[in-house]
């Protein structure tokens, strides 16, 4: 009896999945046709512009379930595959929880964590961790004993694993979100329905945390020196891409962006956010690393540029940056997802870029690259004939 209901559940799930794949492909094809039309219209215009347009709007085919399962065994992803995977993870509804988690774990190098879990960190580190584990929670789930115990154990183990960092505030938020996202409890409905007592895989969570922390070591070691480089880069990006915001902040006496934005880095944008937002950040971070964080911050600021410029007092600006900006942006992203526009939005905002998108200067260098690529005799010939024909036709 139980078996059959389970199958039914699975069956309905599969059909749901294929249905959504079909739907998205269908829409993707539709968009593709639109873009093809656009390209035809653009032919008379500047070639570079056409290339830009074309690059941005190529519809991405999403992976189906079988393809996702095959991906689990893969270690390295090419750029195209990354993009395809990113789009699938963002747009695809109904990917099973365990499936998703298996994909995440392909990015993670695991080892033997027992030795880290069995030791005690120095007293000072232990004290700081103890102070923070009870005040990490935002989600209700974060306040039960099982969760706090896991958080305690993993942070402690990490302090042993990387004594250079030990523990820095903010790590509790990142680690806490990893626990929320990787625990079966609260994520896998089927297992919950079966009413098993779930034993969470703390080592898996630990290695995920280790992986995320790898590129951020300079951000969390004593004195937190890495924050300055990140803030400087952020400032450069804002200056190139939405300088009005920078000027506005300066006119409000904020001449150091640390004051508004440093917490974004120490918490990987995950502080006080809903779980699915944290999941999005985690997935994009696994694929694109810290570049995603930078691009996402600037993209969000750009999105709210006019709103920000209208806020004329720090008492409005600061809570907006701290509490409201990302949660309301996430609501917007959800709407875009419903309209099947989210992938396009991510592409336009450079969220899938490998590097932080600096703005104008980078476009210039891209054009240079394109120009270089173009000086292949065949292409020049192609272009020339096209242009000549165009001209002749035009003259006629």
């Amino acid at each position, binding site marked *: 009896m139980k078996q059959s209901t389970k199958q039914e559940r699975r069956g309905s799930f599969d059909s749901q999945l294929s249905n959504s794949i079909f739907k998205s492909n269908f829409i993707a094809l539709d968009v593709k046709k639109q873009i093809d039309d656009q390209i035809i219209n653009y032919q008379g215009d500047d070639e570079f512009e056409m290339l830009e347009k074309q690059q941005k709007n190529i519809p991405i085919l999403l992976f189906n379930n079988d393809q996702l399962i095959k991906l689990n065994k893969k270690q390295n992803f090419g750029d195209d595959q990354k993009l395809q995977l990113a789009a699938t993870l963002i747009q695809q509804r109904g990917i099973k929880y365990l499936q998703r988690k298996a994909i995440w774990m392909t990015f993670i190098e695991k080892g033997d964590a027992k030795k880290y879990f069995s030791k005690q960190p120095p007293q000072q580190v232990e004290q*700081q961790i103890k*102070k*923070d584990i009870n*005040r*990490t*929670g*935002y989600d209700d789930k974060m*306040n039960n004993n099982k969760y706090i115990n896991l958080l305690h154990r993993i942070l402690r183990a990490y302090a042993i694993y990387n004594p250079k960092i030990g523990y*820095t*505030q*903010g790590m*509790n*938020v990142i680690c806490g979100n990893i626990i929320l996202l990787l625990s079966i409890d609260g994520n896998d409905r089927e297992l919950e329905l079966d009413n098993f007592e779930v034993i969470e895989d703390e080592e898996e969570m630990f290695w995920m945390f280790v992986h995320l922390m790898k590129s951020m070591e300079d951000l969390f*070691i*004593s*004195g*937190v*020196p890495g*924050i*300055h480089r990140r*803030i*400087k880069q952020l400032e450069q990006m804002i200056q190139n891409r939405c300088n009005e915001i920078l000027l506005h902040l300066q006119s*409000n*006496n904020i*001449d*150091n*962006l*640390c*004051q508004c*934005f*440093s*917490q*974004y880095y*120490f*918490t990987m944008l995950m*502080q*006080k956010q809903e779980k699915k937002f944290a999941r999005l950040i985690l997935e994009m971070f696994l694929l694109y690393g810290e570049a995603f964080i930078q691009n996402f911050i600037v993209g969000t600021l750009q999105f709210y540029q006019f709103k920000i410029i209208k806020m004329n*007092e*720090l*008492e409005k600006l*600061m*809570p907006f940056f*701290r509490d409201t900006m990302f949660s309301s942006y996430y609501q917007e992203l959800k709407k875009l997802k419903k309209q099947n526009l989210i992938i396009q939005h991510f592409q336009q905002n450079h969220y899938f870029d490998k590097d932080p998108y600096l703005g104008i200067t980078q476009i210039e260098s891209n054009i240079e690259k394109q120009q270089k690529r173009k000086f292949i005799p065949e292409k020049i010939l192609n272009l020339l004939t096209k242009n000549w024909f165009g001209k002749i036709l035009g003259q006629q």
Partner: protein
Amino acid sequence: MSLGYYDWLVKVIVLGDSGVGKTNILTQFCDSKFSQNYTATIGVDFKIKILNVQDKKIKLQIWDTAGQERFRNITQTYYKGAYGIIFVYSLIDRNSFNNVEGWIKSILESTTDEVCSILVGNKLDSQDRRVQTAEGEKLAQKYNMPFIETSALENKNIQDIFDRLGQNLKIRLENEGQKVSNNIHTQSGQFKLNQEVNQTEQPTSSCNSC
């Protein structure tokens, strides 16, 4: 109509070890709330409150900082332009009291401006006291600042922190006003005060720490 009106705008920062109750003191003072289920401050938090001192209104712009020692590097970037400083330790955490002097020194080192400070021993509600009142008083005397013991949980003496700080701020601002000899009471010139003071005291102020 006079809701947004104030005579002075003043930047105040709250310093002290992690977990001593800085954020809870502020939420109690600004929002009349105490939350058992609060989160650790990462980066900086920001609150506004208008304080009445006799016939004057002082708008406090309060910066709440992260307490962990390794953030001090960033915390110092908030010091600039601060007029008031609240040093907080916890009565049940001996270390936080021992570290207060470090916080005071970090201010003395990084700013030449005269600031109005106050020393606060928080968590008066707890039975497990580890720092005696006399010790707090002695330290406050050494650095010539007022001292007060509070409970954010029970809302005890919280308003007093700001009243006493406010009185000192008012005295200082009035002296300042005579020195600079100008009147600032426009709503639009919100940051005038800080800017002008910065200009007079440090002509080429630059912050190159970040």
